């Protein structure tokens, strides 16, 4: 009664894709020095919206994790100087297709009945790990749009269960939730090519951008998107700042 995994197939494709990507990178090594970066900060204009506190009383374990650090919603997180956290920056126009695919395997952790990071930016077909640091069972339930070709799934991770390793086929901002802890909510931001996510101060850096003209898009789960045109010179850092209007 061993159940087939629909994902096995996908996994294989992914593996192939990785090999292909690897070959591509080797090809790129030569002019690696010639690649520039795009940096900047994302700010919120106006007062930071009030983020509701989360009442986890349903699961005493979760409550204990936040005894001295009350949990809040993370839809809009503003740092010093109005820097916006969890904004995803990616190149929406101007990609040539032979950018280096990043090789590292990001981790999406379930910690204290919250997702860290709240938003995980991923390249198409980039493998990532879903792990749990909690002693309570979570279920991971990404909800991609059925039209995009990304296949929705819904799996539980009991404490100490091995990581779930998978990837996404097409670019999409996929919201992910835990049904056992309904307040748990985050995003897989699946984009094509080089990308970055802002830190606590709203700063970001997109690496491995070949010289050229690009349109950079900043995406925030609640505040929407903004774009800016930048020109990257070989080995130089181009700058692009964004400011979102508070609702």
């Amino acid at each position, binding site marked *: 009664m061993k159940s087939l995994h629909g994902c096995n197939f996908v996994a294989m494709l992914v593996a192939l894709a990785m090999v292909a990507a690897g070959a591509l990178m080797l090809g790129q090594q030569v002019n690696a020095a010639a690649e520039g970066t795009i940096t900047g900060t994302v700010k919120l204009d106006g007062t930071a919206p009030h983020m509701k506190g989360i009442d986890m009383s*349903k699961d005493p374990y979760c409550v204990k994790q936040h005894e001295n650090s009350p949990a809040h*919603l993370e839809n809009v997180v503003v740092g010093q100087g109005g820097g916006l956290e969890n904004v995803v920056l990616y190149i929406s126009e101007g990609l040539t297709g032979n950018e280096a695919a990043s090789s590292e395997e990001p981790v999406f952790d379930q910690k204290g009945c919250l997702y860290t990071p709240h938003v995980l930016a991923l390249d198409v077909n980039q493998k990532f790990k879903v792990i749990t640091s909690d002693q309570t069972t979570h*279920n991971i339930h990404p909800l991609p749009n059925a039209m995009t070709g990304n296949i929705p799934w819904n799996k539980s991770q009991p404490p100490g269960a091995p990581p779930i390793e998978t990837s996404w086929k097409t670019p999409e901002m996929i919201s992910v939730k835990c049904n056992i802890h309904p307040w748990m909510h985050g995003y897989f931001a699946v984009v094509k090519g080089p990308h970055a996510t802002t830190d606590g101060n709203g700063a970001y850096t997109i690496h491995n951008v070949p010289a050229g003209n690009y349109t950079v898009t900043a995406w925030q789960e609640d505040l929407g998107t903004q774009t800016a045109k930048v020109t990257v010179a070989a080995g130089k850092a181009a700058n692009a700042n964004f400011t979102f209007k508070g609702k």
Partner: protein
Amino acid sequence: MGKFVAVTIVVIAIVSAIPILRHTWWMAPDISQHGAPIDEQMSETMAEAGISFLASQIILALFIWKFSGSRPSDPIKSFPGGAKTMVWAAFLLVGTEVLALGVFGVKAWANVYFAAPAANALPVQVQAGQFAFYFRYPGPDGSFGPLHPDLISEANANFFGIDVDHDPDSKDDIVTAEMAIPVNREIHLLMHAKDVGHSFFVPELRVQQDFVPGLDLSLHFTATKIGRYEIVCTQLCGLGHYNMKAYLSVMSQEDFDSWLKKEAALQ
């Protein structure tokens, strides 16, 4: 061999009865106003059922003991009275038992379900969804705003789909993940299912009622003992069913008021 069977049956019967008699595992103490008749009903049924259980098992054992050893030469005896006695016995025993229990049962059932909630009962709305309960208090204006299913967004902690910006009634509604009620005050519980079937079970309150999607039911009860109890889901609702629960805090009126203020501040 037969005698051995007989002994085993008797031993099993008695051993099974002991935990019941000693209440080793028993219903949680009742904290509700309507619970007493239910408990009464339970112990009566337990007594009558227990007696018929022990009696019939022991008779079974007795006959096995007595007649398993009999030699082919022994004559076949027939039970005095034959089948007719049995039929009459069954009708008398069970019939009276049934009527007795039935009548009392109706009483117990009636004062849960046939009595209307008092006018001054405190309305609380509970919404069940995969896999958590959320509660809504009407706030000072005493009235709930309408629900907009399309606005429901757990991501933004809008679990009920209330529209604070446009519905005046919703402005002061208080949504909580834990249920608190004042002691000795009747609660009028308005039950709403968000997605699939769930159930509202508080053993101490002697209350169990399904949430029926598409059909909003209501319950009313009065808690008589201050304390913290658990509300659990008893209707299979999916993978998180086992962990679908909320706490029920029964507090003094003062504590309740301050609790409500605290929660209101967090909205």
